[in-house]
């Protein structure tokens, strides 16, 4: 065999990673999907073990002008990790070590593939946790949290990921390794850390992350309020905030949600109720107790059927298990779901919720609402069976109506799931062409070649010097 074949990108990756690079058709398809309804097919999947390997992969991608996409646990709900343009998938799943827990600085350095809940579990013995707690926390990765600036029930009081990430080591799209931010309070220069968080892998790949440790509260009380009328529940949300209380979490679930959750957890959720509020108060006992009393009053004024207070940690955990597994439990109603993530002013909750139900009725779909009510962060789920002919058009029409209703109410497109591939064509509802042009200018400073997770976040049109201009290929949508 004398003829020297030109080395392919796969050959080079193979030389770098050995058996940790794959291109088996079946396997590739598994990396074509996240938890959204979108899918594509990558050309290759890589499993690097450290920043240098990520750098090596990105270098190779640069040489071959091949797009690359970071993937954490693949639980994204907006198609952020869904491959477009025959990319190389860089799975961070094997980079899952907690590198250092520094109790004095109250930070931990972790690799991006560390699972959110694994981190909090590891911190437990020291009396700390990582505050952002997406409902997917048992499986989502810290890298994914950073990329999506994820939130969670407890972000009402504690803030979303950006408030809890101090620094990140990042492999830039040109394969340089840099550290953004710092573990000191005022790092010099522009807040590139803040810019990177929420950039959904389009500005590089985080390979090491410094997270802030939050002390576990000395006292926690979890309450469940049930309502015979959804509007009463929504009004109670505003009333609680108006009373000067910022609960650690303030979650709402409607009738459909309660049914499917209860079928899974058997936590005694009131399946008859039109809606329940799950309220958590934490902190020092004086404040917590006072807040419990205030909430009981609010409950009375807003016609709550009852106020159940979790009597111990087991009951509390069970109530939360129900809430946190809600999206996953949808298949108990229908095998597929399409989920939005808009945020509206709290005062508009009742109005927008009604429009959600109307949209579902109009297109003969089932709407399930389980959401971060305290933040006004709606998660209307449209449950459907993809095998039904013509159903997707209806799902999309209803989705469009929901987005429009939210925008009309002065809301935003995404509260925590990100824009990804799924919501990017709605961006114009929120931003002018010039706004998006400016965003793209900044993205380009990081990635002039457009290789890092291309075509996500911004609609194609907003790219100015898109060397990798591509349209979303056919079939990627659902």
């Amino acid at each position: 065999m004398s003829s020297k074949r030109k080395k392919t990108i796969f050959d080079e990756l193979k030389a770098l990673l050995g058996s940790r690079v794959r291109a088996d058709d079946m396997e590739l398809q598994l990396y074509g999907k996240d938890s959204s309804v979108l899918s594509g097919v990558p050309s290759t999947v890589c499993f690097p073990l450290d920043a240098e390997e990520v750098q090596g992969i990105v270098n190779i991608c640069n040489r071959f002008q091949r797009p690359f996409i970071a993937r954490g646990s693949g639980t994204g709900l907006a198609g952020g990790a869904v491959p477009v343009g025959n990319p190389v998938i860089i799975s961070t799943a094997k980079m899952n070590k907690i590198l250092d827990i520094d109790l004095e600085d109250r930070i931990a350095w972790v690799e991006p593939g560390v699972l959110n809940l694994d981190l909090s579990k590891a911190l437990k013995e020291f009396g700390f946790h990582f505050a952002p707690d997406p409902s997917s926390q048992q499986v989502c990765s810290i890298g994914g949290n950073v990329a999506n600036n994820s939130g969670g029930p407890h972000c009402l009081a504690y803030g979303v990921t950006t408030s809890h990430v101090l620094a990140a080591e990042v492999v830039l799209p040109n394969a340089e390794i840099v550290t953004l931010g710092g573990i000191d309070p005022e790092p010099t220069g522009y807040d590139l850390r803040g810019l990177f968080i929420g950039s959904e892998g389009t500005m590089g790949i985080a390979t090491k992350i410094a997270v802030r440790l939050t002390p576990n509260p000395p006292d926690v009380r979890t309450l469940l309020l049930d309502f015979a009328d959804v509007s009463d529940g929504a009004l109670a949300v505003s009333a609680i905030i108006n009373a000067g209380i910022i609960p650690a979490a303030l979650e709402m679930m409607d009738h459909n949600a309660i049914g499917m959750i209860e079928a899974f957890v058997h936590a005694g959720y009131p399946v008859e109720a039109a809606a329940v509020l799950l309220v958590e108060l934490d902190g020092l006992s004086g404040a917590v107790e006072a807040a419990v009393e205030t909430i009981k009053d609010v409950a009375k004024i807003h016609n709550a059927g009852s106020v159940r207070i979790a009597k111990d940690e087991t009951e509390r955990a069970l109530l939360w298990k129900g809430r946190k597994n809600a999206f996953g439990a949808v298949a108990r109603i229908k095998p597929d779901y399409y989920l939005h993530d808009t945020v509206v002013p709290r005062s508009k909750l009742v109005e927008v919720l009604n429009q959600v139900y109307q949209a579902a009725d109009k297109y003969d779909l089932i709407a399930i609402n389980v959401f971060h009510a305290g933040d006004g962060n709606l998660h209307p789920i449209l449950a459907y069976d993809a095998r039904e002919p013509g159903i997707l058009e209806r799902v999309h029409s209803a989705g469009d109506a929901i987005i429009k209703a939210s925008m009309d109410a002065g809301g935003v497109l995404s509260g925590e799931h990100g824009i990804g591939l799924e919501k990017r064509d709605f961006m114009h509802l929120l931003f002018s062409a010039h706004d998006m042009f400016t965003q793209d200018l900044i993205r380009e400073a990081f990635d002039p070649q457009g290789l890092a997770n291309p075509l996500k976040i911004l609609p194609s049109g907003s790219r100015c010097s898109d060397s990798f201009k591509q349209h979303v290929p056919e079939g990627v949508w659902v």
Partner: protein
Amino acid sequence: MNLGTTERQEFAASVAGTDLVTVVGGKTQWGVGGAIDPNARPISAPVGIYDYTPSEMTLRCGAGTTIGDIQNKLGEHNQMLPVDAKDESTIGGVLAVGRSGIRRLRYGAVRDYLLESWHADHEGKLVKSGGPTIKNVSGYDLCRLLVGSLGTLGFLAEVTVRSLPIPRCSQWMTGVCDPFELQSNLYRPSSILWNGIQVWVLLEGHPADVAREAEVTGLSECSGPPALPFAGRLSLRPKLLRELPQLYKQDWVAEIGVGLVHLSLPINNDQNSLSTMTVMRDIKKRLDPTGRLNPGREVF
């Protein structure tokens, strides 16, 4: 049309041109980042609170509105903006400088309080970033980039910030103790200051909790924090503060748990690696190609 729309449009128009421009706020932190080119044409940002719904805990106002006015307005509904800046500072100035107040230990960095912004870019065009709701991840987080950028990337015209309820009780305590131990004995105190000898701690919350925690500190009540030296400012990882007494004999006050040191000596630090500077320079070049926005100010 929305309240404030005309104001921000007029402001943007006043930025347009090819000359050097600078936006002037309350001049309370005017020196930060170096002297402005004297040829720069001064303009000022719109003033006025356009929108405040207490139950949303958000407030929208012109970037030239003073912190005093904002705090007064919020105070009417028992809310506040935890920034601890001087009354005459403007919100735009506070955000552009990006320095948090001494209650950062509990309330976090000032950058986290900016939800939505309109800024005028180098061509005098308005750019909106972020969103008016407490939570939002729609698009790139330009708000974070603008905070602390000293107006070198664009001039804030209008901002929406988030507010918090004023704690029912606030109490400063002082005395001599180990501030690091104190920090681990308290649950989320609002501030712990230390000058190498004396400690000040701010407890906030429900009166019963404040009383109980006050007892834990073993310190005595006082009326407020010490005056902070302002000639120098160090940003250190929190645990390095332990070594301060060996490093500086001079006047300093450190924010325990945060890592900031206020000094009477003009000492500042700088620690970004060169490669990040490349991206920073590139961003500056893209957003202000001719360098006309706040010429003279150096962010890095």
